[in-house]
């Protein structure tokens, strides 16, 4: 049966992705839900919740708020929290509840900006899509709202788009920065160990490094707006995975991850027939002929063609008899590389 999960738990949803992008930017983020979605984000999909404080709240919607569409009450509550917590902007993240009642997020943005005096961005996530869709929308909203000014380009400065725990399994940017600093003078990971100022100054970057498909639309926007070129890379593949692929020869290998990570790792595997796959969005500009996996049945069918799978260990439970190399993906199993 399509969309039936018998072996794995649901993968990270779009609202988690949106929150992940905005987490460290000094905003007041409101998850427009009854409480459960915020609990999923804070208690599971956001490992920084226990390390770095962030003004991430649940709107605490109740049935009558949903039935009557009481957006004014939501805005009142948002204004109240703005008077209690210092913030540079506000953000409203959609969930299944506003999706079902067709909340007008554009109107909510205007009402919020009027009431609080702070810029507001909204992400129309619905909880039915995967995290990369939410990240994509949040990155685009963020750069569109704040990266407006064309500043002089700083030679050797690169911006990284897609550095979230869900993509990388990392809660700090140091590993990515250390790796990219071998090639560039200055590295900034947008939204991880850097604040809103770096988003505002995005045009300073000579180049952007996109480490997940969720960053493509934002990178395209920056290219169009400021002429900033971008390229794909995933500079944080775990060492143990890199060591294990050295032993592979003459095998049919399938690498499963988010598409950029799968492609970067795939290119490092020598002497094998390598295909790349993802349960998440597939974009031809990252890799042609990459495989999209729709559900467990699809995985079972497609995995039959391979001797080796490299991917999050959770997928192994669906049923694969060959060699399996664990390449953790936080958006799948909720494990950071540190857990590993």
């Amino acid at each position: 049966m399509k969309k039936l999960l018998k072996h794995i738990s649901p993968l990270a949803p779009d609202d988690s992705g949106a929150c992940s992008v905005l987490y460290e930017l000094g905003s007041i983020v409101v998850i427009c839900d009854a409480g459960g979605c915020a609990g999923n984000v804070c208690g599971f999909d956001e490992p920084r919740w226990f390390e770095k404080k962030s003004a991430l709240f649940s709107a605490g919607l109740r049935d009558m708020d949903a039935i009557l569409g009481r957006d004014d009450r939501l805005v009142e509550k948002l204004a109240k929290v703005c008077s209690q917590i210092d913030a540079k902007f506000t953000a409203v993240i959609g969930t299944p509840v506003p999706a079902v009642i067709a909340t007008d997020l554009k109107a909510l943005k205007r009402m919020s900006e009027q009431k609080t005096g702070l810029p507001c961005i909204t992400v129309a996530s619905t909880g039915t899509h995967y995290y990369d869709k939410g990240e994509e929308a949040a990155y685009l909203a963020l750069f569109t709202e704040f990266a407006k000014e064309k500043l002089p380009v700083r030679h050797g400065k690169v911006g990284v788009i897609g550095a979230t725990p869900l993509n990388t399994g990392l809660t700090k940017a140091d590993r990515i920065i250390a790796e990219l600093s071998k090639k560039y003078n200055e590295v900034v990971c947008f939204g991880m160990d850097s604040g809103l100022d770096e988003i505002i100054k995005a045009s300073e970057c000579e180049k952007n490094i996109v480490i997940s498909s969720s960053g493509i639309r934002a990178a395209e926007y920056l290219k169009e707006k400021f002429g900033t070129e971008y390229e794909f890379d995933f500079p944080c593949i775990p060492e143990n995975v890199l060591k294990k692929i050295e032993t592979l020869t003459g095998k049919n290998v399938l690498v499963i991850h988010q598409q950029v990570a799968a492609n970067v790792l795939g290119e490092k595997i020598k002497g094998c027939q390598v295909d790349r796959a993802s349960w998440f969005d597939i974009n031809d500009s990252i890799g042609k002929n990459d495989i999209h996996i729709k559900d467990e049945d699809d995985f079972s069918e497609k995995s039959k063609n391979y001797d080796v799978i490299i991917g999050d260990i959770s997928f192994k439970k669906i049923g694969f008899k060959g060699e399996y190399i664990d390449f953790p993906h936080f958006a799948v199993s909720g494990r950071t590389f540190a857990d590993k």
Partner: protein
Amino acid sequence: MTDAFYITAKELANGGLDNMPDELISSRHMIYSSPATLDFNSPGAKGFGVKRAGLAIPGSVMLLVAPACCGRNTALLNELGYSERFFYLLLDDTDIVTGRHLTKIPKVVKELCDELDYTPSAVMICITCVDALLGTDMDRVCRKCEETAGVPTVPAYMYALTREKRLPPMAAVRKSVYMLLEPQKRKSNECNILGHFAPLFDDCEIYELLATAGIKKIHELSRCKTFEEYSELSRANFNIIVNSEARYAAQDMEKRLGIPFIELVRLYRIDKVHNQYKLLGQAIGAELDDGKYYEETTEIIEKFKNKYGALTFAIGECVNADSFELALALTEYGFKVTEIYGTVGERNFVFVKRLAELSPETKIFSNLSPTMLNYRRTEKINAVIGNDALYYHPELKGIDFNDEIQPFGYQAVKLLFKRLDERLEKEI
């Protein structure tokens, strides 16, 4: 940036229940899903939320029918051995708009039952806010599932939207897990304890006291290993509720199975514990002699007091107690409680009023207030009680006192002081 909001017990009591400040009323502000209180805001994040609780029937499995976001953190339960009992039917936008998922559910239930190498005792269908808004008639869908798959199917409603309603999710799921009980001849020397999804501690005196009253068998859902044992629950002569969230389930059992119920409260003031046992004895027509337990507990409290003096505590709400009743108990025993992180309501306002008389300056915070993001300690505190209190004061000695196995009666009081003693004796 404003400091964390608090109100003193005296101010709160003087204002009365009808004049509580907005910061103590969760519907009037954004909700801070503090790491301290995740389990409150996210049923399922910790402890027994709807999803885990719904699997209390031995041999049952659960099908969560929802958008992916609702089932995401269920992965946490895999570590507790539930991975083979959870299945998910993910909803997409078209499902939500057309409601077509409802026709899929019976087929999915059949597919699951056919593929499992055992026949589940029941399939719990867990639905969420989406179906609450769509007005899904899940009873009807469950009947269809039973026809198709031949397995009892029960709805479990994880409707976070209705948390403050007459039937909040955790009360509704308590009803759901007893729904498969069939009427049978009742046995006069058996009773059930209802309320939690884990049993009371084995050394709780209630077992011995009931035994002296002629009760030969005390059933608890969480101690049932098989569906046959579960089925025995309906032959109890009466139900004892030890958590008010089970009241609705007990009312339903009274109506359907003819089992009356008696409601008890977990208390930490031992004179009240004594009164409660006296009333329980009267209700079941027996004299419960709790003198021995009363004296033992009194002695333990005295010993603790003599050893540590008049300690100052902070008490949270992620604890096996009503934080305000516990604060009142500690205050009456001669200790000081400077801060409480809790939720005030009709149920516990009576404790606030009494506390206001004995300790008017005790500060009351709301864990859910966004201002708790700015919480800083300003009071001298010797020890803390509760998971949330430990989060706010990681450098202080304290106990979480939030076990899944439930303390009750004198045993709860004894365990509290034993744990505190053990913790305070340690250097770090």
